Each structure stands twice: as C-alpha cells, then as structure tokens.
C-alpha cells in the first residue's frame, strides 16, 4: 500500500485539495490492485478502492494513527471486497436456483489464461485474502491477522488450507 506514514496527515479537514490529490495518487493505485486480486474484477475493484478512499479520508480526524493512512485504506478495501464477494455469492446462488441447467462452474473462462489464477479465484474469500496479503502484499501473518481479525495461527491455517487446495487443483489439472 505504498509508503505508509510518509506524510503527516493532521488537519485533513483543512487540507488543500492538492494534498488530498497526492494522497489519492499515492495510495489508490495499490488499493485498486488489491481489490482486483480479491474480487477478480477490475471495474468493481476501482469502485471499491475509490469508496474506501472516501471513507478513510472522510473519517480522518477519528483515526488513531493518521500517519497509517495506507494501512487503514488496505483494511477498508479488504472489508469492502468481502462484503462485495458475499453479495456476489448470494446473487450467484439465487441465479443458480433459477437457471434451468443449474450450471455455474467456477470461473475458468478463456480470459483466465493462467490456471493458477483461476484456482486462486475459486478459493473461499478468507483464504484468498490471506494468500493475496501474504504473497502479493508481503505482509506477515500477524499483520494479516489484524486485517482479517483473527490470530496469526488462524492466518497460518488459512494459508495452509489455501495452498493445499491449490496444490490439489494444479495436480489434477496437470495430470
């Protein structure tokens, strides 16, 4: 999430527009990338990242550590993505009930050239989030636990199950 704490953000309420713009450019790009990896949809990810920026900047005065704007933004993105994924899952479930064929295969469309990516997208949300935060954002299990609100031990278990699932899937696909 970029350079965390690089700027002191005190007084955002009276912050010039240029500084707010600088924060946006500094943090939102990485937020979009994170949201894309968590939702699998670039356009949804942009909406989520922008919404997260508004939320965190809007309650800047309430932040315990205004310097950690990026960390707050990351956590907000993860939470918004979870809400979005849950909603999508409910919609898919509903759609499956109303589809005559009843077929709703995991997202392995032709656009997903990378087989690993398609398997990652098929993981449960918490496993996928732990995987992304660990191997893309390079966070420790403790940091991931703070975001996902669980213990480092639970994060380790999430990562283990995710990798085991991926290993099985890759093994089956590769014969």
């Amino acid at each position: 999430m970029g350079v965390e704490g690089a700027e002191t953000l005190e007084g955002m309420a009276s912050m010039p527009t240029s500084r707010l713009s600088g924060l946006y450019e500094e943090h939102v790009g990485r937020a979009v990338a994170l949201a894309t990896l968590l939702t699998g949809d670039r356009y949804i990810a942009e909406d989520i990242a922008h919404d997260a920026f508004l939320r965190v900047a809007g309650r800047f005065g309430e932040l315990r550590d205004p310097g950690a704007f990026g960390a707050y933004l990351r956590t907000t993105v993860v939470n918004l993505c979870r809400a979005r994924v849950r909603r999508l899952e409910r919609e898919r479930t509903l759609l499956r009930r109303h589809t005559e064929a009843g077929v709703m295969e995991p997202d392995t469309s032709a656009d997903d050239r990378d087989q690993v990516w398609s398997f990652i997208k098929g993981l449960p949300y918490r496993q996928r989030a732990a995987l992304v935060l660990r191997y893309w954002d390079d966070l420790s299990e403790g940091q991931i636990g703070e975001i996902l609100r669980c213990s480092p031990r639970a994060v380790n278990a999430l990562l283990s199950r995710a990798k085991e699932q991926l290993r099985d899937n890759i093994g089956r696909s590769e014969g």
Partner: protein
Amino acid sequence: MIDLEHRITETLQDRAPVFVRQMPKGTVARVRIRQSIGSFATLALVAALAVGVMALSSWVPRSVQPASRQTVQAPTGILPSPQGVEGGINDATAAPASDPSATEDTSAHGTNSTVPYTEQVDGQEVYLLTQKHVVSFGHVSGIEWSLAAYDTKPYSGDRFPRFLGGSCGDLMVGDQGEYGGIGFCLHTGETPPDAAFAMAGFGNASDRNVEPIIGYAGLVGSQVSSVELRLSGGETRRLPLYDAPSGIGARYFEVFVAEGTGGHIVALGSNGAELGSGSLCISQPPSGPDNVGCGHGLVGVSSVVTSFAEPPTSTP
C-alpha cells in the same frame, strides 16, 4: 512448496493491475461531506449523552439518597401528631378559626394543593347546620389530608347516612379527596346521646405507590380535657385537640398510624378519669379501591375517586 509459493506470487503480481489515475472531480467535495456528517453525528451523540446524563442525574439522587440525608422524616412506626414538619410528607397544621354563621356553601368544588379539601355534596344542606370548617390539615406519606368540623341536624332520609344531629366531622385524604375518607359524629346509634367521645377509623390501600393509609379521627365534648393514644406496646401519646369554630360544640383530633398498629384512643376528664375510648380497629386495609371504616362514631365512608367530573360552567 517453494515452487507453489513462487507460482502464486508471480500469478498475483501478473494479475494485479497497474492503476495510475488522477483523483476524479468531486472527490474532495465528497470527502468534505463525509467529514461534516461525521462531525454532526459526533455532536449529536455528545448532545444525546449530555441529555441522558442530565436525566439520569435528576433521577438518581432521589433513588439512592441515604436515609440519613432525607430532608423529610420518613414515615416509620407511629406517625406523630402533628405528623412531623409542616409541609413535609407527614404533617398536621391547625386551621385558622372561621365564622360558622357565614353563608352556607353546599356546592361541590375541588381544591388545589394550597386549599385543604372539604367534602361537599349537592343537597347536603338537608343535614348540615353549618359549613364544613377545616380544623386541621396536613400530609400523610406525602398525600394531603384534611379534618373538617360541622354541626348537623337530624336526618333519616335515604340520600345520605343517618344523622342524629350534633357535632360531626370528616377526615378526607387526597388533594381533592381522591383517596376517600370517613364521616363521624359524636352522637350516633352506637354512642349514647350524652356521649363525650366518639371516633372512627379509615383505611385505604388503593395506591401501590404509597404505604397503606390508616387514620383515626374523632371529637370530644366539653367535659373531656385530653385524648391519649395508647399503643398495645405500652407507649402513650397525647393527641392534640383542635377547636372548632364557635357554634360547633366539640373539639377534634386525628392521628395516622402505621399498618399493623394496635391499641386504643382514650378520652380523659380533668381528673384523669376515662370518659370514653375506642380501639384502633384497622390493622391492614384490603388492597384495592375499597376503603374501610370502623368505630362507634362512624357515620359513613367515602370511596376512592377514580375520575373527576368537569366543574360546572357558570352561565352569564
């Protein structure tokens, strides 16, 4: 394992988009709006908390104030007569004398808390010789009461209780008599024509918010010099006698006691001789709207009032 983690990392980096874009127009305004909403919500929360604390603080002291800090003596055991401090929750005040020859007032009316209540009923002139004059009033458990004196003529109709004539009185409880009360006379069927002492008891337990009200009131003739409350436990207390206006040949007394109190009220002559007595005949009034009365001087019991009629409007 290392190969798998490497593939995961490469895949994620490959799939993570590079997003470089300037802040869209309107973002600043939306941030400011969110900040304003947050500030307003905080202020509203603080205001609500302040109001809540104020409401709580106005309630808590009354409920947790230790007894030693009570500003008014709490009713315990026998309530003295006069019952505590004037204006307290248990008190008694002698009413100023008035002229019994004044014009008869037989219209029903209510009072407010500054005017002692007297029971006035339409048509009461058939047995009244004088107005009803308040001779004492006060509070019991914070509720107003009044003791009224009046003179009567014989009446035996069916509209009111039977009166043999002579001095009578009312003990009424409530700002507007809403707790009811009793009427009593010196001469009743249960007392001799030359009786020097008569008394009656009143019990009410209609209000769940206050302790049951038990009071006794009576009147004595000129031959009685003092009246004593003699409790079954041995304690004796002299009760004050309130003079009635000239024309009403009796003096009056009252006392309120706690639930379960037993004993007698005794009238004594100047030489200490016992000229009459009556027992504390109410131990525990039944809960509910029905008042109870007892005693050889009892004439009638006024019931609890649950609603008041609108006062009649005068026509020009």
